[in-house]
């Protein structure tokens, strides 16, 4: 028996090509331009997209919402503990109070395991997806529906040659969505705010680099996760000019997995942990209990913990690539570090 692979392959590819060409035609009269996405693909997209689908909550959907872009569908998450079990968009739910049920934007499934037919039903003219779509064989499906651009948001992804801070990614998303003008206006206002805050920091603390700050999380697996790059949190720490402890500053990767034995090396003025206001399991009290369980008595030899300078920030409000998150983190740092009295690292002694 001879398997007719070539004729069958030819027939299927021809049919696929016809379908793809017929379905990705831009709307009548829609002006197009070519952009290069984060993975280096050149994609022809509408100059002014009217029907955008987003497949990543805090990195794409949230900035599109802040810009007032023409979003018609978005991926989301379902958790019994959050939003009464209704789908929600991580980050946008928390910082922008976005609710699918109170909007005309359709829920299209999970960001990574989306319902392709739900997306097709929206007849989008642009899809903005995370680069993970290219690695899971799903990109051809999205491309068959509409022009699809991919965003890289992993800080250590070697494919990305340009900048990869939250605001740099935000700028690219704004550009693809045809909302660069709105982005520039928001950016200018934020730059003005940041300049004013820096003035206050200098007036209050002198050189902000004298203040040592680090992120630390304990997810209950026996080790601590210390991130040098953690979206708006570390970007605003950098923006205000605070310093990191050597163990973090000298780390080669984006994070340091730290055992309890290394914890005494994490001597800082302030330690910042993240909590989730939408999940009881991640409230600050539960997180403090995890720290105590991993290393009882740790407050005695970690400066920030000993002097009440272990502080908590809402992770989901902090993480979005929006100016709302940037303002939230700036205000948090100002209120909890700059505008309060604290015991500086060099002024105190710790238990041996």
């Amino acid at each position, binding site marked *: 028996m001879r*398997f007719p*692979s070539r004729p*069958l*392959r030819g027939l*299927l*590819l021809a*049919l*696929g090509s*016809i*379908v*793809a060409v*017929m*379905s990705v035609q831009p709307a009548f009269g829609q002006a197009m331009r070519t952009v290069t996405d984060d993975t280096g693909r050149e994609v022809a997209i509408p100059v002014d997209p009217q029907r955008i689908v987003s497949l990543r909550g805090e990195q794409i959907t949230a900035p599109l919402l802040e810009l007032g872009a023409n979003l018609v569908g978005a991926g989301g998450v*379902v958790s019994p503990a959050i939003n009464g079990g209704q*789908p929600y968009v991580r980050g946008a739910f928390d910082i922008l109070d976005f609710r699918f049920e109170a909007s005309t934007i359709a*829920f*299209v*499934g*999970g960001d*990574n*395991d*989306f*319902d*392709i*037919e*739900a997306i*097709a*039903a929206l007849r989008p003219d642009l899809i903005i997806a*995370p*680069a*993970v779509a290219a*690695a*899971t*064989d*799903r990109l*051809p*499906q999205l491309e*068959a*529906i509409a022009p699809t651009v991919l965003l*890289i*948001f*992993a800080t*250590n*992804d*070697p494919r990305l040659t340009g900048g990869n801070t939250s605001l740099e990614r935000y700028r690219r998303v704004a550009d693809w969505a045809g909302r660069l003008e709105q982005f520039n206006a928001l950016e200018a206002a934020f730059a003005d705010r940041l300049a004013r805050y820096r003035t206050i920091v200098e007036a209050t603390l002198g050189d902000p680099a004298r203040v040592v700050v680090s992120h630390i999380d304990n997810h209950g697996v026996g080790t601590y996760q210390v991130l040098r790059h953690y979206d708006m949190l570390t970007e605003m720490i950098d923006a205000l000019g605070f310093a990191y402890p050597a163990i973090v500053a000298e780390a080669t990767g984006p994070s340091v997995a730290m055992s309890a034995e290394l914890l005494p090396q994490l001597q800082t003025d302030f330690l910042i942990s993240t909590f989730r206001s939408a999940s009881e399991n991640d409230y600050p009290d539960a997180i403090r209990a995890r720290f105590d369980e991993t290393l009882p008595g740790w407050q005695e030899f970690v400066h920030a913990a000993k002097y009440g300078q272990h502080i908590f920030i809402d992770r989901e409000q902090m993480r979005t690539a929006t100016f709302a998150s940037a303002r939230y983190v700036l205000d948090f740092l100002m209120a909890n570090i700059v505008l309060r009295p604290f015991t500086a690292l060099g002024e105190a002694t710790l238990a041996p």
Partner: protein
Amino acid sequence: MTAVEVPVSPRRQRTFRIGRWLSLPYRPRTIIRGAILILVIMAIVGVVLPMGSFNLPADRVWRAVFNPAAASSDELLIVWEFRIPRILLGILIGAMLAVAGALMQSVTRNGLADPGLIGVTEGATVVILFTVIIDTGIPPQWYPALGMVGGALVAAFVLFLTRRAVGVKFVLIGIGVSAFLSAGISIFLTYGNISQVQSAMVWMAGSLAPASWDIILRALPWAIAGLAAAVLTTRATDASLLGHTASTALGIRGFRLRIILIVTSVALTAASVAAVGTLGFVGLVAPHLARFLVGANQSALIAGSAACGAVLVLLADSLGRLVFAPIQIPAGIVMALIGVPFFLWLLWRRRHTL
């Protein structure tokens, strides 16, 4: 060359022959039950094909299927690019995994043997995952072959440790190796690039959502070769069940047969893993269903397992795709919900013989 039917037993068994080249004994009752299973598959396809989040009336779906020239671009896209490839891939992968399981159970003479349980799936997964995580640039067309290398190495290692591919010892050592490889997979997921780890996790959940003609064409040659090998070894496998002395007297080379069956099982599993990720328990559940519904001789087992596997994966994927839409539950998770209780039930039934 003409097809000749030779009745061996007028009431129960006949033989299908093509010249001197092919001689397949069969039982009419088995054929009828197999035909019923195929009708079940067609019925499921008939029900699930018109269903989906894109609101497309059934008459337009069938028009797109049987008269594509009269269909709109939307109808062609939804039916020919999304739904039909996904259904065909489900049938193909279900049949491949089920036959892989049936072959492994025949080799080990152990109903608990499944490529997923003895580490073959994990072996294939580790190699493919390694290829993805370190970004080797190897095109996906080579993933089945790479997966087969990983699966074959694990199978060879387990064979080396057990000496004979028979009995509970084989399965227990396989489970140990499987656990070891799972730890290796965890290391990749812990230290890999976050984007690649996310894609790996989606792939490992065993989802048919990325189904495309390209993926089907990648898996099809392996399926044809594997299923052909499974069919061509049915008589020898049946004879081997008579015991070493009797089967040797009948001209069966037991060791060579076991190697062929294991390599075929590994190849089918690796190609499935490369296509849709880790979709567990099909190889465990489907052969048991086939024995119950169709029959226990090897030809009935292979054909019945293929059909039962196709039904299982098609149902699992359709439930995951439709029940909570647009939320998509990977077929691997739905299969685990079915497979884990089934596995525990099997263990309970055999608790005195393990």
